[in-house]
């Protein structure tokens, strides 16, 4: 709650410090990686038959600068002459687009479910267990089903495409935190606020839009952030299991197959996935700034 005011007027100094700490975290990670690579045993740390720390060969742990450098070299043989980062960027944009569609669908479905559960207590008892159960079904299991069902859909000129299956799976992961977070948020107004609205003689819908939705924002924002992360992960995984070309999922598999000859290249699409995640998180942060007036806390009297 108090974070709202902190973000509302950040001191220049504090912002700088935060950036410095963030950068220091990355540097620390690089230093740890390189330090272990330089000092650790080539065959890794093995206890009994169990490898608890990885091998330090160039194959298993390429130098950080090799990974980054590889991004700026050409992708491979003659037919595909663009630098790796161009390919990764294209795949990232594609994946981000599909994830965004999945996120939007997931947020809409999640919100609708939450509103339904808030309105009808029986709906909450009937639907909530299924919402939680839905998340225990492995993605790999539902991916082929979604694809098969989708391919049977046809309305006039509309045909189901594979990317839509991927978006549906992404939304399947994204709706969950939204429905749970929004339900908590919609139920968050104090009794006194609810009774105040009752004393005004206004109906449930007006109460929803004037009281419950604004009050749910502090609960909704973390849920939306989780949903964004879930949508990105769901998209990448679903791209692999459905076999959709053009995104990061397939690229990770393709590059991993070349790992024995080109270990640094494997990391390129992983950087892409991180970038996609950062863009998604940045979007939610922006949303948080736009909604900052709903994140103020009332100081108790």
């Amino acid at each position: 709650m108090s974070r709202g005011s902190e973000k509302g007027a950040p001191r220049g100094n504090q912002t700088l410090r935060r950036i410095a700490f963030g950068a220091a975290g990355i540097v620390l990670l690089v230093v740890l990686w390189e330090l272990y690579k330089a000092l650790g045993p080539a065959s890794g740390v093995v206890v009994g038959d169990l490898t608890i720390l990885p091998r330090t060969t160039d194959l298993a742990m390429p130098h950080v600068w090799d990974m980054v450098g590889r991004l700026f070299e050409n992708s491979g043989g003659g037919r595909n002459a663009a630098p790796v980062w161009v390919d990764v960027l294209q795949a990232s944009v594609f994946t981000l687009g599909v994830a965004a569609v999945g996120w939007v669908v997931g947020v809409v479905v999640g919100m609708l479910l939450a509103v339904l559960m808030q309105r009808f207590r029986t709906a909450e008892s009937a639907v909530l267990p299924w919402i939680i159960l839905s998340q225990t079904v492995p993605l790999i299991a539902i991916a082929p089903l979604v694809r098969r069902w989708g391919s049977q859909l046809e309305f006039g000129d509309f045909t189901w495409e594979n990317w839509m299956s991927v978006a549906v799976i992404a939304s399947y992961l994204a709706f969950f935190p939204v429905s749970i977070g929004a339900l908590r948020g919609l139920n968050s107004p104090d009794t006194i606020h609810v009774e105040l609205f009752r004393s005004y003689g206004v109906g449930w819908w007006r109460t929803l839009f004037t009281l419950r939705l604004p009050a749910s924002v502090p609960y909704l924002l973390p849920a939306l952030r989780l949903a964004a992360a879930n949508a990105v992960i769901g998209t990448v995984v679903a791209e692999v299991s459905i076999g959709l070309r053009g995104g990061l999922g397939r690229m990770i598999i393709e590059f991993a197959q070349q790992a024995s000859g080109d270990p640094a290249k494997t990391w390129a699409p992983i950087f892409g996935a991180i970038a996609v995640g950062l863009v998604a998180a940045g979007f939610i942060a922006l949303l948080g700034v736009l909604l900052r007036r709903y994140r103020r806390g009332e100081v108790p009297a």
Partner: protein
Amino acid sequence: MSEAPAASATQPVTATDVAAAVQVTGVDKVFVGKKKATVTALENIDLTVAPGEFVSLIGPSGCGKSTLLRLIADLDTPSTGSVTVFGKTARQARIDQEYGIAFQQAGLLPWRTVTGNIELPLELHKVGSAARKARSAELLALVGLSDFAESYPDQLSGGMQQRVAIARALAESPRLLLMDEPFGALDEMTRERMQTELVKITAETGAAVVFVTHSIPEAVYLSNRVVVMSPRPGRIRDILTVSLGSAAERNEQLRENEAFFENVSKVRELLHGEAPVGVRGVETR
């Protein structure tokens, strides 16, 4: 000492056929808990509040004074008996916005400015924005917060928040104000200042007030009549008419007045059912 009264001497009712602001007749309230255990919160309550009259409900915790207020506000319904507000059923009175309400917590919406909070009931009832602006400016002046129109609730002190809540309750110029320990969470000094302001405001607006409190001096200072309640089951033990002059005549000097202390002692006597002990006029919370 006790009266079963319609209007007090200080607030004369102009016409005899004017409906009472609040008429509570033979009300019981029984709460049914888990395993069918019942709690009788109110038993056989009869109370009439005249238009423009200030009535306090006082009693120990659990005497049902808040429950009675909630029945008048139609936030709960009586088990038996009837509650009418200006001649209408409590439900109809709520729908017609016959009353304004304030609680112990200010209950402001944290995402709305002070102005936005005061305009909330007007907005919900589709009052035009120009009329809203004019009304909120007027109310802000009334509660002395004109400089804080664009502040957010978290930037205000507890007393200021409570003043905003009172302004919000007054927004639709109700003829009846229902207040449930509105100053309960404030410090003593703020509390006394707010009491003086409330007396001033009710004098200006001419609204009837039903005021729940467990502070004896507060009840005596504010009220035309003090309703003393006893707990478990909640009953009206007695009703004391306080004759300390009209609202316009009440000011800070009244707190040092001999008649004020006399009334405080009487209420205390009624509450405890015995002769008063201890220092007079001291807060007994």
